[in-house]
Structure formats: structure tokens, C-alpha cells
């Protein structure tokens, strides 16, 4: 049994009438990525902010690497680092200056801070942009700098709040790679995300959170199994062939869902082989396909399955984050 990096019981935080976090329990094992999955406004950011000692919980308690977040906040701050939802870097400084600043604030001497900054900029592909102001960085560069700032001194535990929201796929893959390497290096990561795919890619355990409560917990596999399956999405070249395609897919896989797009349909499908066969059957039947994909269930589908409602966006989280 690995020791727990985070142990939270009954965390509550209310903003006015809104209970942004309403009794969250978490047990995060050391040395892995633990995903907190939920839509905007579910209470993810507020939970992270409590665990990172930025705000005090109204009720409940939590220990981070053995330190109580209320009575020993400084001890917690000494072992964690936070990469917030808004990139937590200073836009009016250069990338290099940002890293030196953090290094100095962590207690590195001037020369050591400079050396460390250079090393991190090099490692994160930012060496060329080192002397540019961060306000001129792309989203992906800013995110990488943000993560670099979080590991100026390698933390034992890192909070990552939606690290890839708004990034293009290439930058997203880079961030994922960095996260994997961090974990391989022994850092525990609490990852908040809205994307099931992200949690699936990175996390060993996932807590699904909605309206301030944990509504499901498990490995990505268990969660997906509880949802049922993924889906085969097909788009036709000719919308006129849709009835024909529907027949074929219904025979191969079961109940077909007609999408709002008149050329598109989807059908529940957990198994890649059967999906491929169904596509082949379409081709044999003379249905011409524009594109198809075999996707995992989306967060919406997970939510629909777990809660009966979709993951509608909410205003609370933005307010809580402000």
C-alpha cells in the first residue's frame, strides 16, 4: 500500500450562498497522477486552492504529504507547487527573469538561480525565447514556462489546474509528456481537468466531481466501463445514404443515434475490432464514408451516465477562481 500524498475529508467551501465545494473526500496515493475530473463550476479549482493553502476550508480537513493544510500551511507550501488555471507567470517579465525570480524566492543564490533558469529553459524548449517578454509567448510556451516555474525546485507534489485547456494538440502533447516525466521522476500530481481523454492518458486514479461533490471514483478503465463504452462516429459523403448506413450499423452494432448533422450518425461501440468490421460492412454495402472515428465516451457521456445530466458549464467556478 503506497502512502497517501493527499488525504482530504469532508472539505467544504462556500462563497456566499453557493457551496462551491460540498464535502469532498480524496485519497491520493503517492507517486502517481490523480485526476479530478469535472465540468466548469464543479469545484475543482476551489478544491485545489484549499489543498494548496490559498484559501481556508470552511469545514473538513486535509493533510498534504502529512502536513495539515490549516494548521501547518507553511510546511505544505514547502513541498508543493501550483500551476494555476490562469498561467501563473509574470507577463511583464521575460521567461528567464520569471524563473530566476521563483528560484530566488525558493532560496537559491543568484548564480544558482540563473543556472537553474538556463537549464529549465533549455529543457522545455524555451531557450530561444528566454529574453522575450512572456506577454509575447504563445499559449503553449506560456504553459511550459508555467510548469518550469513549478519545478525550479522539484516539488514532491504538484497541483496542475487544467494544464491543457486552450492549447493546440501539439502543445497539449508536449505538456502531457512533461507530466509523464515528472511522475517518472517521483513527483505526485493532482491534475484537474475537464477532459476524460486527458485523465485517461495520464491518471491512474480519477475522482469525478460535480456540484462540489465526488460522484464517482476509480481507475479510468473502471469509469469508462461504468459508462458503458465509446462510440463509433461516421460521417457520410452523401447524406442521402444515411438510411442505408443506419440499417447496416444497426445490424452490426445496435441502436444507431442520428446526429444533428444530416450526414452523421453514431453508435455505441466498445470494441475496436467490431467497429472496424462495421465500417467495412458499410463500404461493402456501397455507403461512401467521408470520415469515421472510434471515440472514447466524452465527459458529457460520463456525466450523463453518472448523474443523468450533462456537464453543463456553470458560473460558480469562475467566480471562485477570481
Amino acid at each position, binding site marked *: 500500500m503506497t502512502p497517501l500524498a493527499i488525504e482530504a475529508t469532508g472539505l467544504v467551501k462556500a462563497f456566499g450562498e453557493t457551496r462551491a465545494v460540498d464535502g469532498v473526500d480524496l485519497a491520493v496515493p503517492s507517486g502517481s497522477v490523480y485526476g479530478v475530473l469535472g465540468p466548469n463550476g464543479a469545484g475543482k479549482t476551489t478544491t485545489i*486552492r484549499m489543498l*494548496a*493553502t*490559498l*484559501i481556508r476550508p470552511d469545514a473538513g480537513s486535509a493533510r498534504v504529504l502529512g502536513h495539515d493544510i490549516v494548521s501547518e500551511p*507553511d510546511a505544505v*507550501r*514547502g513541498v*508543493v*507547487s*501550483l500551476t*494555476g*488555471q*490562469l*498561467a*501563473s*507567470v*509574470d*507577463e*511583464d*517579465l*521575460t521567461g528567464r*527573469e520569471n524563473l530566476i*525570480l*521563483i528560484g*530566488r*524566492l*525558493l*532560496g*537559491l*543564490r543568484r548564480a*544558482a538561480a540563473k543556472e*537553474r533558469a538556463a*537549464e*529549465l529553459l*533549455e*529543457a*522545455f*524548449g524555451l531557450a530561444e525565447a528566454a529574453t522575450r*517578454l512572456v506577454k509575447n509567448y504563445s499559449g*503553449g510556451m506560456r504553459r*511550459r514556462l508555467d510548469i*518550469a*516555474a513549478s*519545478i*525550479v*525546485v*522539484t516539488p514532491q507534489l504538484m497541483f496542475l489546474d487544467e494544464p491543457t485547456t486552450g492549447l493546440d494538440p*501539439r*502543445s497539449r*502533447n*508536449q505538456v*502531457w*509528456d*512533461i507530466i509523464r*516525466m*515528472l511522475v*517518472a*521522476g517521483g*513527483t505526485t500530481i493532482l491534475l484537474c481537468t475537464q477532459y476524460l481523454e486527458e485523465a485517461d492518458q495520464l491518471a491512474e486514479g480519477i475522482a469525478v466531481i460535480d456540484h462540489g461533490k465526488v460522484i464517482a471514483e476509480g481507475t479510468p478503465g473502471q469509469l469508462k466501463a461504468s459508462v458503458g463504452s465509446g462510440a463509433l462516429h461516421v460521417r457520410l459523403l452523401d447524406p442521402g445514404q444515411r438510411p442505408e448506413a443506419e440499417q447496416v450499423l444497426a445490424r452490426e452494432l445496435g441502436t444507431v443515434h442520428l446526429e444533428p448533422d444530416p450526414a452523421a450518425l453514431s453508435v455505441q461501440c466498445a470494441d475496436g475490432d467490431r467497429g472496424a468490421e462495421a465500417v467495412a460492412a458499410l463500404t461493402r454495402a456501397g455507403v461512401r464514408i467521408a470520415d469515421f472515428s472510434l471515440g472514447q465516451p466524452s465527459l458529457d457521456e460520463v456525466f450523463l451516465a453518472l448523474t443523468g445530466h450533462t456537464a453543463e458549464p456553470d458560473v460558480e467556478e469562475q467566480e471562485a477562481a477570481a
Partner: protein
Amino acid sequence: MSTIETRTATGADEAAVRKAIASTARPPRPTAASAALTFAWRGMLKVKHVPEQLLDVTITPVMFVLMFTYLFGGAIAGSTGAYLDYILPGILVMSVLFTTVYSGVALNTDLTKGVVDRFRSLPIWRAAPLLGSLLGDTVRYVLGGTVIIVLGVVLGYRPGAGVPGVLAALALVVVFAFGLSWVFTTLGLLLRSPNAVMNAGFMGIFPLTFLSSVFVDPDTLPNGLEDFVNANPISILASASRGLMEGNPDMGDILIVLGTAAAIAAVFMPITTRLYRRG
């Protein structure tokens, strides 16, 4: 996994990242002073990278010097030269006090970005970001004040007490500004946007500057107004600076100025720190 290829082509280099992750031992925490000075350094970098902000607050006082001296100087003091002698120490005060509003604006800007979250999650003395930033801002105050003094000298102002008197006056004004800036950092933490801080700040500092002895001798004012102007700390600061620059310093005024600055800081420093901690 296709990510292996994209990594080497574009972003983080795997071996270097692994090394970077592995290579750090946690150093001892910085002292409170060292953390504060690091924030002061950050403030000075901002003067370097965003000089516009300094320009913003310097241009208005420069315009005031020119406008008041040449438009109203003759009417108010008999000659432009005589009025310049009177107004320049006053404008020095105005210029530096206007700059203090920006300390609050800058803090609010930090809050609206995410960077404060990172500072607050670091194991440092909690007042360090505030104290350090304001220390860095004093560099700004000195620069703003220097611009006005140089302008005055160019226009023919010759302070009686020479360089030492001018430096003493500048130091007094900067110390007062440091105290006053805690009011604006409190505002910066209470209000919602940098613009709101700017508006509220100037709504306070602008009338107070005009209802002071910065521009006119209070003796010429109607009774009620004269009493108010004489009691206004900005008036006392202006006449103390004038005394220092002319070579007849009034210790009483200087002590009142220092006492007021200390009192303002004593009230607003804890409020600011508390608000900042709460986040």
C-alpha cells in the same frame, strides 16, 4: 504513441527534462529580507520593461509645471520665475504622490492575472511580495521626482539649499509616498479592476493635491478653506519640502510628515497584508 516524435521535433527535450527534474535539492528558505528584495528587483525589472507606466505619471506633472508657471505664474506670484520657485517643490510632491496610485494598480493587475497565486503558494514571508514591491516602487518615485527637479533646473529654478537640500526634500517626499502607498495597495486588494483602483485613487489624491499649498499660498484663500488646506498633510509635506530646498527647513513640519507617513503605514500595512493573505 506518436508523442515521442513530436517531443524531439518541437518542445521539451526528454533527456534534458529528466535531468532538470532530477537535479534539484531544496535550498534553505530565503530570509524575509531576501524575499522582499527579490520582489523589489521584480519591480525594477518592470520599470525597465514597461516604461510607459512611468511616463504616464510623469507627463501630467511636467505639463502642470509648464502650464502653471507660464500661464498663471505672472498672475499668481508676480513673475514666472518667482512662481517657479514656489511651485516646483509642490509639483515634486504631486508627481511622486500620483505615482503611489500606481502601486495599487500594479497589485490589482497581479491579482487579475494568476501570478499572485504562485507567490502565495511559495513558502516565503507573507508580507514580502507587498513590502518588496513597494520598495521597488520607491525607485519609481525617485525617478519621477528627479524628472521634475531636472525640468525645474532647466527652466531656471535654483534651490537655495543646493543639491543636499534637494536630495533631502526628495527623500522626505519618497518616505511619505512609501507610507501613503499602503492606502493604495489596500484599495488594490479591495477593488475589482486596475481601472477602478486608478479612478478611486485619483479621485482621492487629485482634489487633496489641489486643496493644498502645492499651487497657491494658503494665506490667499477664504478662511474655512485656508484652515482645511493648512491641515492637509500634503500642504505640510509641500512646505517641508520647500523649506528643505530653500535652506530653511522647518523641523516641526518634517516631523509631522514623518509621523503621518508612519501612522498611515501602521494602519494600512496590516490591513493590506491581511487582505493579501486571505486572497
